[in-house]
């Protein structure tokens, strides 16, 4: 796999990038509006974000061909912030998210994302899918039966239209058809216009109207941190998928910095925090997009359409958007993980399910991911903390052979596995099949030696490997109790 030069990544695939950028812009509009509505803000907040993020990332991102914009994963994180404090705190939080992400990029933290276990990643996307789905249920409340019809029809068009042609994104066809239908039949269902304003203007620079105090920082910081982590997580996952689809490499730290700058700019232009989108990136690559130009065209064409077609956008019925979101939810879910749930190790399955449940109950993807990581770590520690001790007797000398990792979690078990009262003169503790990892292990070995010596048995500890030896000599005089 090789990486393109910056110029190649712009102009290496002009025709393909322009066409796919247009397709992505069309597919982005319904999603950007729906994600804004999930977050409880005006549709323009998501649309402006999609424009500024896509365009900024096209210059500064590390993965050409990947599409970043307003996303569901991020929108779900700041519902409470918007509800309790209003839009300006969201904009401030968006700027702070960007600053945190730049720091992640500068300190090259992206590679630590690889430490996130597979089962947590799978739990993350599944939980995201479930939250997107449940966020749509509100649109069915207090509505006539007609909403089910509209949603059903939307989904039917989305899934069946590609069999006719793949030239136009089927989500757009569904939106246009259902909007036309509801205008024509005059159903009186809720529309985008009922959820907020669409202003047919370009985004403008302004400072979020929040007091610049520590108190403000304390309010937005937890949200920003969660946004930064979730945004990078989804972007890294998306970047890896695009790497794989196109068989090229990407610069994950550059992507992290680029996304940070994109979010800062977005916050100052009245947009909400966003990140890379798996679904849209897949659409882009499938439609022939490979370079930076595709993301640039997507952003510019999107805002152009809004300025020109704003009047029509407000008449899109919510049922059509709910249908699109249900499709997004279905394609986000990793169905493969259900099929293989009984095949993967039991602990992996538990981690995945716990990650999903935590997110569903807390409505916070970041908390779910941390719970998952913590649980995986505990499972891992308990797996490797099994220590076995074999022993054999030769005359007056007993040899114990310890096998396993010696550290805080495994030492309690270890100490009980020796017979300190046995009638022998010499004891050898062979550690050649084990490793001493921390001060607890050194102290435990010390304790074992002491206990034997109390019974007048001479102890030899043998077979320490180099690492362990170094640690023991460093710690022995400080911790040694004899």
């Amino acid at each position: 796999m090789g990486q393109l030069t910056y110029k190649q990544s712009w102009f290496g695939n002009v025709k393909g990038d322009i066409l796919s950028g247009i397709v992505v812009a069309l597919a982005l509009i319904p999603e950007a509006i729906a994600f804004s509505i999930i977050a409880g803000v005006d549709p323009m907040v998501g649309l402006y974000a999609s424009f500024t993020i896509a365009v900024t990332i096209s210059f500064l991102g590390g993965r050409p061909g990947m599409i970043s914009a307003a996303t569901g994963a991020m929108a779900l994180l700041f519902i409470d912030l918007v509800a309790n404090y209003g839009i300006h705190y969201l904009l401030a939080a968006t700027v702070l998210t960007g600053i945190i992400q730049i720091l992640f990029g500068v300190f090259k933290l992206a590679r630590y994302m690889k430490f996130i276990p597979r089962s947590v990643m799978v739990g993350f996307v599944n939980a995201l899918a479930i939250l997107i789905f449940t966020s749509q249920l509100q649109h069915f409340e207090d509505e006539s039966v007609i909403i089910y019809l509209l949603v059903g029809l939307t989904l039917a068009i989305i899934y069946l239209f590609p069999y006719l042609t793949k030239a136009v994104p089927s989500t757009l066809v569904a939106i246009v058809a259902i909007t036309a239908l509801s205008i024509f039949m005059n159903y009186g269902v809720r529309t985008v216009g009922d959820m907020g304003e669409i202003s047919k203007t370009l985004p403008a620079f302004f400072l979020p109207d929040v007091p610049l105090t520590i108190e403000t920082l304390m309010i937005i910081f937890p949200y920003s941190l969660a946004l930064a982590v979730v945004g990078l997580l989804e972007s890294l996952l998306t970047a890896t998928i695009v790497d794989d689809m196109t068989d090229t490499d990407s610069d994950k730290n550059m992507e992290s910095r680029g996304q940070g700058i994109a979010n800062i700019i977005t916050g100052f232009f009245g947009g909400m925090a966003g990140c890379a989108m798996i679904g849209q990136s897949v659409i882009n690559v499938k439609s022939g997009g490979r370079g930076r130009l595709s993301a640039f065209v997507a952003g510019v064409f999107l805002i152009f359409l809004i300025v020109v077609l704003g009047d029509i956008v407000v008449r899109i019925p919510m049922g059509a958007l709910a249908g699109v979101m249900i499709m997004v939810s279905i394609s986000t879910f990793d169905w493969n993980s259900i099929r293989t749930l009984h095949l993967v190790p039991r602990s992996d399955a538990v981690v995945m399910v716990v990650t999903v449940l935590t997110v569903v109950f807390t409505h916070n993807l970041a908390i779910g991911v941390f719970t998952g990581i913590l649980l995986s770590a505990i499972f891992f520690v308990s797996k490797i903390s099994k220590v076995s001790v074999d022993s054999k007797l030769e005359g007056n000398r007993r040899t114990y052979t310890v096998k396993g990792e010696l550290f805080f979690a495994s030492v309690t078990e270890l100490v009980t596995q020796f017979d300190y009262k046995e009638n022998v003169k010499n004891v050898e503790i062979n550690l050649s099949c084990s490793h001493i990892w921390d001060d607890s292990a050194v102290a435990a070995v010390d304790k074992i030696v002491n206990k034997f010596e109390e019974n007048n048995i001479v102890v030899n500890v043998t077979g320490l490997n180099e690492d362990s030896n170094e640690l023991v000599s460093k710690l022995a005089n400080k911790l040694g109790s004899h």
Partner: protein
Amino acid sequence: MYKKILLASDGSEHSKRAAANAIHIAQCSKGSIMEVVYVVDADKAKSDVLSNWNTADIGDKRKERMKDIEKMAKEAGVSYKLTILHGEPGPAIVDYTNKNKFEIVIIGSRGLNGLQEFVLGSVSHKVAKRANCPVLIVK
């Protein structure tokens, strides 16, 4: 007779039967080489990346899916090469075949995805229509 042979494979039973035929043809002429091609499409990329998140190289996992065919080729003493392509299976195989001037393409009649094939037409059909060389479709 045929020295540059392309075998399209997705690891399914059909592609194994196709492999048996490809090996047979390869044995007919000295110095022939069989290239086993596996295509990764967009939907596969997502689920493969997720299910191999902590593995060093997804490529290895994919090559593993072709290990039965590899074994068959080894036992028959046919020289072979594994290649992974990216994109839509049909067009990707056609492109690769025509660019590298293969002399014959061997492909199973049906892949893993029955429903899609019913509606969209099969990969083997697309390859047979557009490849610039003889195509052997194995039932």
